[in-house]
């Protein structure tokens, strides 16, 4: 009977979540959200460029926090295929975003002066 229950438990797919995991993720997210809003709304840095870089850094860290504590990402879920597809998507994401911005920026810069 106990063997049967054990088997049942393994059929219960999906990651096992914990209260402390969710709370750590939530607290970290609150801090990582509040600081960027404070930086922009309080005009903490004189240079908008510096502010933009810092808040992009906070966003990247918060995305990682959500991935780990809310989406339960690791190298072992679904035999590693979750992480492999995520990394593949991240590469496509990078090419799409930076490729577009890079190409379109140079298109703008190289426009004929008469058209500007």
């Amino acid at each position: 009977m106990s063997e049967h229950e054990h088997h049942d438990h393994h059929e219960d797919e999906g990651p096992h979540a914990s209260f402390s995991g969710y709370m750590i993720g939530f607290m970290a997210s609150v801090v990582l959200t509040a600081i960027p809003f404070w930086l922009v709304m309080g005009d903490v840095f004189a240079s908008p460029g510096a502010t933009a870089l810092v808040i992009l850094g906070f966003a990247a860290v918060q995305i990682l926090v959500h991935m780990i504590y809310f989406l339960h990402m690791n190298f072992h879920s679904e035999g590693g295929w979750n992480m492999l597809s995520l990394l593949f998507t991240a590469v496509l994401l990078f090419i799409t975003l930076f490729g577009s911005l890079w190409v379109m920026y140079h298109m703008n810069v190289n426009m004929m002066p008469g058209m500007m």
Partner: protein
Amino acid sequence: MSQTAALNTGETGKFDFLAKDYHAPNGTLLGFWLYLMSDCLIFAALFATYGVLSQSYAGGPTGGDVFDLPLVALNTAFLLFSSITYGFAMLQMQQKKLAGTMIWLAITGLLGLSFLAVELYEFYHMIHIGAGPQRSAFLSSFFTLVGTHGLHVTFGIIWLCTLLVQLSKHGLIAANRRRLFCLSMFWHFLDVIWIGVFTVVYLMGSMT
């Protein structure tokens, strides 16, 4: 053969599938994850479009003119709280408590509705003052990106209501637990997208 032996020791890397054959007990969760990754690419295209067009004001309002940051902060709080309340629903599900799962799901749905209400008010207000999607390329890409996210939240809420009905009818059966896992991934994924939206669109946009 020696290669196989080397693979079986698991020394080749961190990924499990390098070391052993993987057969998903049920492909739904992996399949749904792959759907989310393709959804992520839709948002990548929309973010890239917004990035390219975000300075094309056509003489119209800039982000600094039309964005109301306290309202965005409120909306961000709604989504963040809805993430943790969905987490609580999943914890209740693990303990096989049907009532608790449904209560936390309902709270998650209400927070999602609050988010949508604030976003619709923001859109209505912007269109009312003449900053609608047809005003400039910047505003077109803004409404497309943020509107697509809002549409996802809308469908998430519809899905959530459907699940509440199914839970009340059939309880925490295996199929419903699987659906709860899928919606959990969808809901947290939307919160991840929102991190990009409030950072790139609202915070960086309001500095212009």
